């Protein structure tokens, strides 16, 4: 088998397959992570004290532990917990709710990415909300907005614009740490590279191509984010 044949017949199709899985991991995780970050950030900036404490705890845990450990917990740790629950609840005649804890590899990966990304995103959002003058929220209420209306119509859009560069950066990180889906047996780009490499002993080419694919995804994401940032930016004062 020639090198060219190997590329054409095995490596590229396999990596393309992985690319599709990667995209399926990254897009929902990025969106859900951003929404979670927005809610958590808002809670941390504006919520009552007890909520703030609970959310700060969540962020401390998810920023303070390695993502690999978190992923392993979701995928391999939860089933152990399910087993324990089953032991207690089954004799009591409960319906098998413990089965909810048995996540598919894909679900475990998206859950892990979303919770981790949400913790980081909330940090950017919280900072942005705190930097917005409270007056805008007050003005909205004076016009008859309810608190939640004022948040979603005024505070959230302003905060997202201010937080856009940080949030975009987090999405770039997410693209790269999606490769950790490997540890919960999701075969995305890195997983395909690993499989093909160990099958044909061609580690250099396999991982080089994987790296190129990530670089391409990051480049595309950067362009999209830059365009979005520009489109969303609040205009600067006009020069006269």
């Amino acid at each position, binding site marked *: 088998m020639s090198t060219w044949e190997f590329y054409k017949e095995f490596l590229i199709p396999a990596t393309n397959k992985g690319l599709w899985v990667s995209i399926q991991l990254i897009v929902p995780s990025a969106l859900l992570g951003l929404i979670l970050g927005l809610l958590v950030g808002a809670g941390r900036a504006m919520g009552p004290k007890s909520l703030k404490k609970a959310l700060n705890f969540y962020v401390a845990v998810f920023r303070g532990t390695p993502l690999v450990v978190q992923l392993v917990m979701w995928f391999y740790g939860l089933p152990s917990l399910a087993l324990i629950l089953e032991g207690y609840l089954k004799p009591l005649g409960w319906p098998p709710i413990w089965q909810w804890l048995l996540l598919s590899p894909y679900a475990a990966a998206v859950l892990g990415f979303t919770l981790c990304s949400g913790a980081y995103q909330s940090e950017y959002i919280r900072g942005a909300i705190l930097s917005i*003058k409270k007056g*805008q929220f*007050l003005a909205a*209420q*004076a016009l*008859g*907005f309810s608190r939640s209306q004022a948040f979603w119509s005024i505070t959230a859009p302003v905060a997202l614009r201010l937080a856009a560069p940080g949030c975009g950066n987090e999405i770039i990180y997410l693209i790269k740490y999606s490769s950790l889906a490997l540890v919960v047996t999701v075969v995305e780009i890195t997983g395909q590279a690993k499989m093909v490499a160990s099958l044909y002993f061609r580690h250099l080419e396999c991982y080089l191509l994987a790296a190129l694919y990530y670089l391409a995804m990051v480049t595309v994401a950067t362009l999209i984010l830059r365009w979005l940032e520009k489109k969303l930016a*609040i205009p600067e*004062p006009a020069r006269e």
Partner: protein
Amino acid sequence: MSAQPLLEVSHVSRIIDGKTILDDVSLSLGRGELKVIIGPSGGGKSTLLQCVNFLQPPDSGDVFLDGQSAREMSRQNICAFRQKIGMIFQDFNLFDHLCARDNVAIALQKVKGQKKALARQRAMAELERVGLVEQAHLYPSQLSGGQKQRVSLARALAMDPMVMLLDEPTSALDPELIGEVLNVIAQLSRSGMTMLMVTHQIGFARHLTKEIIFMEAGRVVETGPPELLEGGPEGGRAAAFCAKLAEVTGR
């Protein structure tokens, strides 16, 4: 004048962190009246205005708009109540991410549930009233202070308020921009809008109002016609305060 005042503030007190900010303040406004509140800073003027529309619910006392008690309203009704009370802030508080037109239109859409096109049409009409049609597409950061305050007036007026509360609408403005804002306010008053205004523009106040309310340390200390402010340092508290203002501003 009808027997029932349009806006009645009744024995309102407000205590923050154990400090009494407002102490049993009462006042009333008849339909079409403009009353002016003056007094030293820290006297509770801004807090009073925010108590009137329950942005800061008073700790005791009540506010009646057209005879209806705000105290007895549900959360939802408080939002409807606030719609009927336009509020102007010292530092404008325009929405940074929206152009002038959308600053005016957004509450019509989100609060009154109007269609976008209709809300924008109304917004343009209000901007025309304050002379800012040509600036409709500009963002707050691109407007001068006077223009910002006029947009905020348009934003409040678009909600068809029954009363307007103005909290030092010109004190964050450069002197040459004060006139354009006061003109709009004077016009509004002449057209019959009921207004309660905190200001240090004594000359302006004298021309437009029949009653001055002097507040100090959370209490209404003196109430009376604009002549109350005359008499210099030997007059009442309000006159003494005015004399001091005049000394500083050279008027």
